[in-house]
């Protein structure tokens, strides 16, 4: 690691010394590099995480909480986890070879009992071999990309999405620590106004998590996916496209051909029409059909329709979206691998910052329709002031009885207005959103209700930047009968906040606090049962590098991004992180 730190610092040095006009007191023209350096080259990034997990003191307490016990893989003792990710890319402007090397090590993960060495947590599942039970080094992604003229060809790990992601959406979702690629072959070619995309490969989810605890790492499941898309752009004001994807789920991990002896598991096919600027409107309409053959999927067909209309009228910017999804999540459930990815993820139209255990069911519903309208108003002035108003209305007809994630047994109507305000462009900025969501049940089952507010505010004080971020929500349950543990359905309040003070550039101090009275949250506070606190020191040695030292705890919780939701564990302990590009 020291090598990389030193190398990154060395890489930054010439730039800051020679090309930083502020340091030189003048602006110096850029010095042209020698010709040999212009044709080929490389760059990369380095990410390091060192996490010390502070386990609760009492074994008895842990055993008494089966949810927490399962979440943390029955760990009792403190341990240290080191994760290192190196990305390198090299080549010319037309050809790039990229690789990602991941490494994880667990330290203090063993003890002796009756003379026998016991590994407290299993970092690896038995089918995943490594030189040590407490370490894994993985060449996670490799790709060779060539861009000859109007074409782009990728051999190795690539990403592909069709339409608005309804038919296929295998892309990076690092916001929730998911990075699944297709390991295979992918090509795109533009011929005039025509564009053709073809891709085929095996799913390659990242094995080593960057931001979450690593344990029970499994071999890749390698589902086979192929995709085709043909698009015709600029046909008058219209863009037309047709696309399809084939899925063959592997029933075992690994890459043996015998895993793919079963018939095709599923297929999706559809098309989209896009009209640009017709009467001052942009219109997008997509329809997709889903066809299932996998015996584990209880239905044979599904469909999805999505549409958006966008227009701009003076200071108004208006977006109206509508969706109808019926049995579109079946392939995701059938291939479910610990939430590591989803094949299909269409627009949810949800405000994903405040998804709860309850509303996650609507995100993943197999029988939902509705829409959302959002209006932004750009006010005149030197700074950029944009208030906004959004209203989402959905009808979710999936219930617990039909196999969905819902806690309720009746369909529900969802109303969700959100008001926003942004003030940016000056030394002080505010970004705020507030909303009230109701999941109104049919008959007399009442409604689940959520009030939420998030605010990001920053202003200079005495020459130092001070930033405040607050997220708060209060949730009240309706009547839920679907076998849900009644004690878990207590109304709750979630609060989280942070204060960042740029005390002495390039140093910043951050104070975090979390509070949650949600009994479904599987973590425990470090300050009190429901109360978490942490402090972090950030140091930015160069513009693309940051070192952070964190001590304290934050809570577990559900987090959604990119149409996918994950139950992320909490954290209690200390960690040092380093991120940089070079």
């Amino acid at each position, binding site marked *: 690691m020291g090598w990389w730190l030193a190398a990154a610092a060395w890489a930054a040095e010439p730039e800051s010394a020679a090309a930083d006009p502020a340091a030189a007191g003048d602006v110096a023209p850029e010095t042209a590099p020698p010709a040999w350096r212009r044709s080929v080259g490389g760059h990369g990034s380095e990410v390091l995480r060192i996490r010390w997990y502070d386990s609760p003191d009492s074994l008895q307490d842990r055993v008494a909480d089966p949810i927490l016990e399962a979440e943390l893989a029955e760990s009792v003792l403190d341990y240290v986890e080191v994760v290192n990710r190196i990305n390198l890319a090299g080549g010319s402007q037309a050809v790039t070879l990229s690789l990602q090397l991941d490494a994880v090590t667990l330290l203090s993960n063993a003890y002796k009992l009756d003379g026998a060495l016991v590994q407290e947590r299993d970092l690896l599942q038995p089918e995943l071999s490594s030189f040590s039970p407490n370490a894994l080094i993985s060449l996670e992604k490799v790709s060779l990309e060539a861009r000859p003229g109007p074409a782009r060809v990728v051999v190795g790990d690539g990403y592909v999405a069709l339409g608005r992601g309804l038919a296929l959406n295998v892309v990076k979702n690092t916001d929730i620590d998911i990075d699944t690629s297709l390991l295979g072959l992918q090509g795109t070619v533009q011929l005039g106004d025509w564009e053709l995309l073809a891709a085929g490969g095996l799913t390659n989810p990242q094995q080593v998590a960057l931001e979450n605890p690593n344990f029970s790492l499994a071999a890749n499941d390698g589902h086979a996916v192929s995709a085709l898309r043909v698009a015709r752009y600029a046909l008058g004001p219209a863009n037309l496209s047709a696309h399809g994807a084939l899925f063959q789920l592997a029933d075992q991990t690994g890459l043996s051909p015998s895993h793919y002896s079963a018939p095709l598991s599923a297929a999706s096919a559809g098309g989209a029409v896009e009209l640009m600027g017709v009467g001052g409107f942009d219109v997008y309409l997509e329809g997709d059909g889903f066809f299932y053959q996998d015996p584990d999927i209880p239905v044979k067909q599904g469909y999805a329709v999505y549409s958006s209309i966008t227009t701009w009228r003076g200071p108004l910017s208006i*977006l109206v979206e509508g969706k109808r999804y019926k049995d579109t999540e079946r392939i995701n459930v059938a291939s479910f691998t610990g939430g590591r990815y989803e094949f299909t993820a269409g627009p949810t139209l949800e405000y*994903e910052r405040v998804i709860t255990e309850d509303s996650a069911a609507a995100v993943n519903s197999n029988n939902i329709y509705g829409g959302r309208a959002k209006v932004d108003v750009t006010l005149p002035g030197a700074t950029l002031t944009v208030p906004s108003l959004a209203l989402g209305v959905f009808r979710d007809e999936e219930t617990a009885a039909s196999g969905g994630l819902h806690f309720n047994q009746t369909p529900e109507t969802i109303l969700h207005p959100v008001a926003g305000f942004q003030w940016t462009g000056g030394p002080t900025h505010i970004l705020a959103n507030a909303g009230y969501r109701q999941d109104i049940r049919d008959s007399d089952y009442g409604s689940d209700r959520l009030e939420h507010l998030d605010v990001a505010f920053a202003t200079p004080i005495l020459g130092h930047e001070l930033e405040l971020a607050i997220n708060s929500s209060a949730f009240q349950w309706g009547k839920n009968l679907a076998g849900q543990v009644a004690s878990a359905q207590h109304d709750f309040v979630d609060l989280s906040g942070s204060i960042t003070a740029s005390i002495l550039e390039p140093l910043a101090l951050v104070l975090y606090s979390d509070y949650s009275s949600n009994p479904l949250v599987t973590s425990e506070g470090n300050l009190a049962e429901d109360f978490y606190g942490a402090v972090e020191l950030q140091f930015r040695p160069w513009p693309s590098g940051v070192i952070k030292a964190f001590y304290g705890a934050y809570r577990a919780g559900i987090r959604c991004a990119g149409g996918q939701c994950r139950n992320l564990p909490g954290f209690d302990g200390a960690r040092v992180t380093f991120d940089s590009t070079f």
Partner: protein
Amino acid sequence: MSLLRSFAALLVLVIAPLAWAAVAPDFTLRDINSKSVSLSELRKNNKIVLVNFWATWCNPCQVEMPHLQALHAELGSQGLAVVGIATDDARSSSMVKPLVYSKKLSYPVLLDTQSSVVSLYNPNKVLPFTVLINSAGEMVYSHSGYNAGDEVELRTKVLAALGTP
């Protein structure tokens, strides 16, 4: 001996990217009006290019945008091409154009719905992420995140790359 070889290999791995210039890989994406735009086109006439990766859900990205627009307005005619790359995946790409309009951005904004360009430049998808590419096609400056005042340093770097006092 094998240890020595491993050490030498690691050293080569470290030194190689540093000894070479950070060549900016070419890319082609559709903009918010479905027009195909490539880096090589943006670099025509010896322009330097400021590539800014962002997403509709990213708050710091939205705080940074007015400053990039100001740079574009001030230095666009002096050889600077600012381009935004929205890293929203396909499902939220409908939200990009309304945001561009409400923020009054006049520089081109491209859609990387398949993670193809972000994988090359910013594989960990840290946002916002800004790369300055000089007229020779080399990445001469990169910056992750946004804090107040970063725009001052960015402007200085752009001026240096333009050779403008």
